[in-house]
C-alpha cells in the first residue's frame, strides 16, 4: 500500500513538473490565434491608425472586439463578422460600416489605447474554429511617421465552449508572454529625434467590472560589453513613455554602446510591450520604426469581458 502511494505521489510529481514546464512557455507568434491584442491604436492630432484583421480559415468567424483607453481601460466594443479568408481594415478615427457580404460596423475611436479581439465560435467548436484570426495596426502621421505592429496572438490550446472569461493559463489558452527581449538603439541626450518610446499595457483585463490592472515594470539592460544595468516604471491599463525619461541608462551617454538589449517584465502581472525606435540616419534624417520583441517564458493572466 505504501509503495502504491509512493508511486501515485511520484506520478503526481511528474505531472506537476510537466505542468510547470507548460506554464513557463511563451505564446508562439505569427500563427492563427483565438485572441489578438493590438498593442497600440492612436487616433489623435496628426496621428491615425489603419487597423487590419484577417480570417485565416475557410470558415465564417464572429469576432468580438474592445477598444481600451486609459486610465480606466474603458472603451467601446463591437462585433466583426468575417467570411472565409476575408481581410478587413478600417481607419480608427473613422470606423467602418459594411465590408464584404456580412454586416460589419466598427465605431470610430479617438485617443490612444489598445484593441483586444476574441474569436467567439459556435458551441463545441474544434480548435481550428477558434485559432482563426490575425491582425496588424499601422499608426502614421505627418512627414512619413509610421509605426507598424503585428497583434500579439494567443492561441486556444484545448477544445471547448466559448466563455466570457478567458483563462490564459497555458492549458485553455496560451499564456501571456512573461519577458520581452528588445534590442534598442540608445538615444542621444538632448536630441528629440532619438527619443525612442515604450508602449506598455496590461495583459490582465476585467472589462465587466472596469477594474484597470496596474503593475510595476522592471527593465534589465545589457550593453554590448555585457554590462548590466536596471530601471523600472509602472503602468496602469496603457501608457506610452520615453525610454530615456524612464532612466538615463537608455541613452548612449550612460549605456556606452550604440545598442543594447532590454528585458522587460511586469511584476504584479504580465504586460504587453512594444518599442517605437527613433533614431537619426548617418545622413541626419529622422527615422521611426516599430520594434517588436522576442518573447521568453509565459505568465498566467485572465481576461474577462461582459
Amino acid at each position, binding site marked *: 500500500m505504501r509503495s502504491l502511494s509512493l508511486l501515485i505521489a511520484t506520478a503526481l510529481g511528474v505531472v506537476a513538473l510537466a505542468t510547470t514546464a507548460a506554464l513557463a512557455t511563451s505564446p*508562439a507568434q505569427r*500563427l492563427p490565434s483565438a485572441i489578438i491584442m493590438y498593442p497600440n491604436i492612436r487616433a489623435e492630432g*496628426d496621428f491615425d491608425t489603419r487597423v487590419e484583421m484577417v480570417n485565416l480559415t475557410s470558415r465564417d468567424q464572429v469576432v468580438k472586439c474592445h477598444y481600451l483607453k486609459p486610465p480606466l481601460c474603458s472603451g467601446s466594443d463591437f462585433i466583426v463578422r468575417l467570411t472565409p479568408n476575408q481581410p478587413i481594415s478600417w481607419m480608427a478615427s473613422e470606423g467602418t460600416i459594411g465590408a464584404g457580404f456580412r454586416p460589419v460596423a466598427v465605431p470610430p475611436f479617438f485617443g490612444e489605447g489598445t484593441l483586444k479581439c476574441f474569436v467567439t465560435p459556435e458551441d463545441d467548436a474544434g480548435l481550428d474554429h477558434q485559432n482563426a484570426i490575425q491582425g496588424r495596426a499601422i499608426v502614421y502621421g505627418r512627414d512619413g511617421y509610421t509605426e507598424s505592429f503585428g497583434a500579439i496572438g494567443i492561441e486556444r490550446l484545448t477544445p471547448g465552449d466559448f466563455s466570457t472569461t478567458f483563462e490564459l493559463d497555458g492549458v485553455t489558452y496560451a499564456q501571456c508572454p512573461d519577458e520581452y*527581449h528588445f*534590442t534598442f538603439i540608445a538615444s542621444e541626450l538632448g536630441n528629440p529625434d532619438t527619443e525612442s518610446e515604450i508602449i506598455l499595457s496590461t495583459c490582465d483585463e476585467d472589462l465587466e467590472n472596469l477594474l484597470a490592472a496596474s503593475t510595476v515594470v522592471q527593465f534589465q539592460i545589457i550593453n554590448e560589453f555585457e554590462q548590466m544595468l536596471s530601471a523600472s516604471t509602472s503602468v496602469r491599463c496603457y501608457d506610452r513613455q520615453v525610454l530615456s525619461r524612464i532612466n538615463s541608462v537608455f541613452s548612449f551617454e550612460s549605456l556606452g554602446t550604440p545598442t543594447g538589449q532590454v528585458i522587460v517584465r511586469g511584476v504584479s502581472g504580465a504586460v504587453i510591450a512594444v518599442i517605437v525606435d527613433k533614431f537619426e540616419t548617418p545622413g541626419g534624417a529622422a527615422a521611426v520604426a516599430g520594434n517588436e520583441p*522576442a518573447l*521568453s517564458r509565459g505568465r498566467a493572466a485572465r481576461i474577462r469581458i461582459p
Partner: protein
Amino acid sequence: MKAPWMRRIAAALLVCFACAGAPARAVEIDDVDWSAVLRALGIALDSWRLSPFPRMTPTPTVPPPTSTPIPTDTPTSTNTPTRTLTFTPTPIPTEPQAGQLSFGPAPGLAPPQRLASALLIFPYIVHNSSADTRVTLINMTNRDIGVNCFFVRDAGPVLGCFEIGFRVNLTPLQPFSWFAGEGTNNPLTFTAAPPFDGVGELRCAVDPEVPDLDAHNALQGRATVFEDSSGDTVAYGAVGFQRRVPGSFPGSIPLDGFTYDQCPERLHFQVLSHQSGSVSSLVLTPCEQDLLRQLSISTVVQMQIVNEFEQVFSSSTRFACHAVIPFTKFSTLGRATLGTDTAHLVLRGVSSPLVGMVIDRFRGGPDNSTHISANDPYLEGGMPSTVIFP
C-alpha cells in the same frame, strides 16, 4: 575442371548438331535468306530471354553522380527524440481546413515566431549608395554561443547565389549590432562581421558548445533598413526556427519538423492594394539553401489573393536565390482590379518553401506623405527543407 555429366551433355549436343546439319547441305544455299533466319531465330530466343544477339534496348549504366549533397553529419538514431522532452503547450495540430482557397489543406506545423531560435533568416538586407541596414543579434541565454552567419545575394544566372560567411561569438545576453555596409571589428568584444553590398538575405545558425536544447535555441535578431537621406525605414524581426531535439550542430540543417522546425508551407499577408504613387514590394527567398555548393534555388510562387468581398484572384511568378518584386508586376494586386483597399495574399512556393515579407508603401496622414513599413507574414503549415552550411 568440368564435371563428367557436363562433358556427356556437350558430346550429345555435338552429335545432334552434326546430324541436324547434314540435310541442310542438300538445300541450295542461294535460296536461303540467312539474315531473315537469324532475325527470326533471334526473336524466338529473345522471347525466351536467351537471345545471343545484342538487345536494342540500352544497357543500364551506372547513374552519374548528382550534385545532391551527401549529409555527412546526418543525425543518427541516438538523437531519436521523445515528445516528452518538448512538453509545451504547442497547439494540437488541427484538422486540415478543407476548402482553403484552391490550395487544399496545408500539411505540417508552421514554425512559431519571436521565440529564442537556433536558425534565423533575415529576408531583406540592403546596402547601396542610398540605403543601409542595421543588423542586430541578441543572445537570449546565459551561455556563450557561437553563431555562423552568411550574407547571400543573387549574382545572376551564371554565378548563382553569392555569399559571404562569418562567425561571431556572443557572451551571455550580449547584443551585437553593425551596419551591413560597414561591417564591424570590435577588439573589445572579439566580434567581427564583414561589410556587405547589394540586396540580399542573412542566415545565422547557432553552433553551441554543448548539445543541450536550450543551448541551441538562444538567438534572436532584427534588421532595420533605412534610406539615409529620407529616413524611410523598414524594420522587422528575423524568421526563427527552433531546434527540437538535443544534439551537435549538424552543418547541414534539416528543417524537417523533427530535428528543427519545418519551413512554413504558406505565407499569409494582409496587404494594401497598390495605387499610383504607392507601390508595395514583395521580398522572397527560398527557405532551402545550399551554401556549400552555392546552388541557386529556383522556384515558382503561386499566389492567391482574396479581397474584402471574398472574391478570389490568383497569380504566379518565378524567382531564384533572392528577389524583390514590386506589386506593379501583379495587376491582381492593384486597387483597380481588387476593388478594396486591402487584400489577403497567400503565397506558396512550389519547388521550395518560402521565407519573405512585404514592404508596405502608401500615402496618407495630414500632409499625404509617403509611408513605408515592414509587413511580416502569418505562417501556415510546414514543409521539410534543408539549409546546408559549409
